[in-house]
């Protein structure tokens, strides 16, 4: 009988290899169909009507001009908003649906809204606005810890609100046919996308069909159907026509999620030998109209004996925060690594030596030590490193910066139905989604490995809520959840098949294995039957088995685990005359347990590095303090890194028994945590001063250089 446990290193034919993603051909030819691409006969286009002001009251919403606008088929206003309060620009007030997109846009502009405008508050960098409830955490005795130190380094650091800016905006296409609702959404949560829509639309969940084969990025912002999704379905029901509603880019940037800012004042106590004694932080920031929390301070070096951390949120008249790839971790990493590295610089200690010296203050010293060494080798730390500001002469300064991070990543609850058909074909069905992580490919690899078949032989069906339920893709949980469910399903189906095959090979099922397209006797591989011949023994019956990932049980059995560590080092150049920061190189060393597909795993890390570089150098949601309007709600001025901006990237995945024996652990979030912290430290190392606030734009760099010295 086949054992469901993950195969040992020597026994793997697919797991851990470099395998190209299965849906590559559809993606590179434009034939992959996204929510935005669904065109149906009679399709109407819907546009939102949104608040033009950030704060105030709605006095009236007049739809009459919009209603008579050409091509308009339906108009809707949120009656509850009349007399209601507006809290941010872009708040949804209504919607129109028209024959063409242009007509819908025109009609939406004709909706007349009367406001009673009030002065908004959007400033988040000033602690005087931090009136939210204070959360306070302490360990040891901060005063004693600071006294114990030989040197106390003080600093201010911060990073602004940034957005998800998924290239496919949020939204969906919907159609009501024969009383059933069909939805094509862009979502991270296929199985439960339609939750809550049934009451609002008046069609039960059992008659709601969700289909998302491809989606153009989520990063934590696409878990629910949102008000606009529900609206789209309602308009489809009302008009009897299919309706497409995807957010315009400016609206997407303002209301469809963002990452909270974090600013703070810090004190780090350090002894002359580099030992950290105390860490004090007073942190504030905004999640817009959403909540606020910076839970992970001090980050990684969490066993510093004396700590005092207070955090307070600022409610601002901006759209609400959403989970943004590794919520709160990148902020806590930037704040902590900056403060610690400034302390090291103050006693003229090499950063690598300093981070190593204190490694016992982390929760996995051995992993970090190993990763630090690899990262230092890959970047050429020995040859390139220098103390802060003591680099080469000339106006262009080069420097290195380090950051460490961690993440959980325990696989989510997931179910898989695995079918083996009499003709030998194999199908896996899971109600999961592929955000571009390679989820489809991972499932095929696991099933192929289990059944001894090439991945081309496996049909993977995902993206529908009619398939066995699977968790949302958030928190780096998908690969753990789906790989375990598909491993369990395919092992149990195989064992059923082995029982049927056993009499034909004259041995017991225990003595058989499925390898290289045959079922054979383990001890006598020539006693074998071809896979298709074996399957034909099923007669007319398809063999279907369900695998269920129960998080606790799977963790106990070694299928999945949680808690990984990573180290990154950045190599930058800073032009001290222009203030321009250039990425030379960046290395990421990452542990994520047993890797299913090395190729797509590395892509996750490359992608995270680039996303992190973007946040370090370019990204900031800029709001006008007077009007509360987002000033850069477009992709020209809300800038993403381009191919020229990233330097050379190197990725090293930790492999080997020690890591692989832990089982599968998620990877989406961890590598996005450190880049900004590492880059900020590299800039400080290069030019001799800390540029306290991200993004590290030329004006901020020049400003810091002008002020000089360590803050």
């Amino acid at each position, binding site marked *: 009988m086949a054992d469901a446990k993950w195969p040992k290193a020597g026994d793997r034919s697919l797991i851990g290899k470099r395998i*190209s*993603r299965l*849906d*590559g*051909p*559809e*993606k*590179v*030819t*434009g*034939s*992959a*169909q*996204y929510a*935005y*691409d669904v*065109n149906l006969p009679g399709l109407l*286009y819907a546009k939102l009507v949104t608040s033009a002001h950030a704060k105030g009251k709605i006095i009236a919403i007049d739809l009459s001009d919009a209603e008579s606008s050409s091509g308009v088929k339906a108009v809707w206003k949120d009656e509850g908003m009349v007399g209601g309060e507006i809290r941010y620009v872009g708040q949804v007030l209504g919607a129109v649906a028209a024959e*063409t*997109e*242009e007509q819908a846009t025109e009609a939406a502009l004709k909706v007349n809204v009367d406001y009673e405008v009030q002065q908004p508050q959007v400033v988040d960098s000033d602690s005087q606005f931090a009136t939210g409830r204070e959360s306070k955490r302490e360990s040891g005795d901060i005063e004693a810890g600071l006294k114990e130190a030989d040197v106390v380094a003080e600093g201010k650091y911060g990073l602004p609100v940034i957005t998800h*800016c*998924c*290239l*496919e*905006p949020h939204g969906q296409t919907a159609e009501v046919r024969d009383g059933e609702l069909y939805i094509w959404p862009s979502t991270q949560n296929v199985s439960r996308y339609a939750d809550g829509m049934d009451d609002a639309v008046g069609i039960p969940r059992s008659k709601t069909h969700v289909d998302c084969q*491809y*989606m*153009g*990025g989520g*990063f934590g912002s696409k878990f629910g159907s949102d008000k606009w999704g529900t609206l789209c379905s309602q308009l489809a029901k009302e008009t009897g026509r299919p309706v497409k509603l995807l957010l*315009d*880019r400016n609206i997407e940037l303002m209301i469809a999620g963002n990452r909270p800012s974090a600013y703070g004042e810090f004190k780090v106590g350090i002894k002359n030998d580099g030992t950290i004694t105390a860490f004090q932080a007073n942190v504030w920031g905004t999640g817009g109209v959403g909540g606020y929390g910076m839970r992970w301070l001090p980050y990684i070096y969490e066993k510093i004996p004396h700590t005092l951390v207070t955090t307070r949120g600022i409610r601002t008249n901006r759209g609400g925060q959403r989970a943004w790839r590794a919520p709160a971790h990148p902020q806590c990493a930037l704040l902590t690594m900056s403060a610690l590295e400034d302390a090291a610089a103050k006693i003229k200690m090499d950063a690598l030596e300093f981070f190593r010296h204190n490694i016992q203050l982390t929760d996995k010293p051995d992993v970090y030590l190993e990763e630090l060494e690899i990262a230092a080798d890959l970047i050429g730390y020995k040859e390139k490193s220098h103390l802060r500001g003591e680099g080469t002469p000339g106006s262009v300064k080069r420097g290195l910066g380090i950051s460490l991070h961690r993440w959980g990543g325990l696989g989510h609850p997931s179910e898989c139905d695995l079918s083996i058909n009499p003709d030998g074909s194999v199908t896996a069905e899971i109600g999961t989604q592929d*955000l*571009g*992580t390679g989820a489809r490919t991972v499932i095929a690899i696991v099933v192929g490995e289990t059944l001894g078949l090439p991945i081309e032989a496996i049909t993977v069906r995902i993206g529908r809520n009619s398939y066995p339920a699977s968790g949302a893709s958030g928190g780096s949980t998908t690969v753990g959840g789906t790989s375990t469910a598909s491993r369990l399903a395919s092992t149990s189906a195989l064992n059923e098949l082995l029982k049927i095959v056993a009499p034909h090979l004259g041995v017991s099922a225990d003595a058989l294995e499925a390898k290289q397209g045959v079922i054979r006797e383990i001890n006598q591989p020539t006693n074998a039957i071809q896979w298709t011949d074996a399957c034909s023994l099923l007669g007319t019956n398809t063999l279907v088995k369900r695998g269920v990932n129960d998080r606790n049980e799977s963790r106990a059995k070694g299928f999945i685990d949680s808690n990984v560590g990573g180290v990154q080092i950045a190599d930058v150049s800073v032009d001290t005359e222009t203030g321009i920061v250039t990425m030379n190189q960046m290395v990421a060393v990452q542990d994520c347990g047993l890797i299913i597909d090395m*190729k*797509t795993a*590395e*892509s*996750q890390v*490359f*992608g*995270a*590095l*680039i*996303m992190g570089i973007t946040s370090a150098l370019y990204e900031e949601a800029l709001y006008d303090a007077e009007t509360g309007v987002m000033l850069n709600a*477009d*992709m*020209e001025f809300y800038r*993403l890194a*381009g*191919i*020229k901006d*990233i330097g050379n*990237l190197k990725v090293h995945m930790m492999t080997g028994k020690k890591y692989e024996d832990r089982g599968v652990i998620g990877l989406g979030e961890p590598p996005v945590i450190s880049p900004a912290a590492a880059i900020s430290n590299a800039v400080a190392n290069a030019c001799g001063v800390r540029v306290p606030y991200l993004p590290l734009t030329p004006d901020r760099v020049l400003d810091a250089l002008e002020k000089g010295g360590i803050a």
Partner: protein
Amino acid sequence: MAKEDNKPLDSGISRRGFLKGVGAGTVATGMMPGLAPENAQAAESAKIQGPGEVPITLRINGRNRRVNVEPRVTLLDALRNRLDVTGAKKVCDRGTCGACTVLVDGDPIYSCSMLALEAEGREITTIEGLGTPEHLNPLQKAFIENDAQQCGFCTPGFVVACASFLEKNPNPTREEVRSGIGGNLCRCGTYAGMIEAVLDAAEVQKGGN
């Protein structure tokens, strides 16, 4: 001169250069004397027709497609919303990100920044015209091999931009690739694989495959 400006740089397209090109094109439409006769004709009809729908014929991937559009409709929206040619994506809708890149008379353009009427009489090649899942071109194969796509939403635009870049620069250096396809953006961060993909495809094409 307008014609000259309208051509992307030979070394490829930079975002700025690209914008400038598009801008020059729009101005040129109003400057009749500077235009070639067939374009002048298109501009003439654009001028006198509308604001209602006008029938036009677009030549897309070698086929003539008749479509009715209001003069305000962009080439991108004509393709996506009226002709169900959805490979080119709408992302920024402002000529910044390149997800809507198509070839017009062999040159890459942001189809969100060209009116459908302007494209009449010109040869439009979209991602659908470059290969199919069953018949991938070497560049597309190299994209897959080097995993130069994640969510894939930017990918069609990049493939078109890279194909055009390779056409004009069959023997590029790594640095030329970086500046040559700087007119497109990816949020998932697929640039590392993409540089390798373009270099690999150049090798294959040089080998005559």
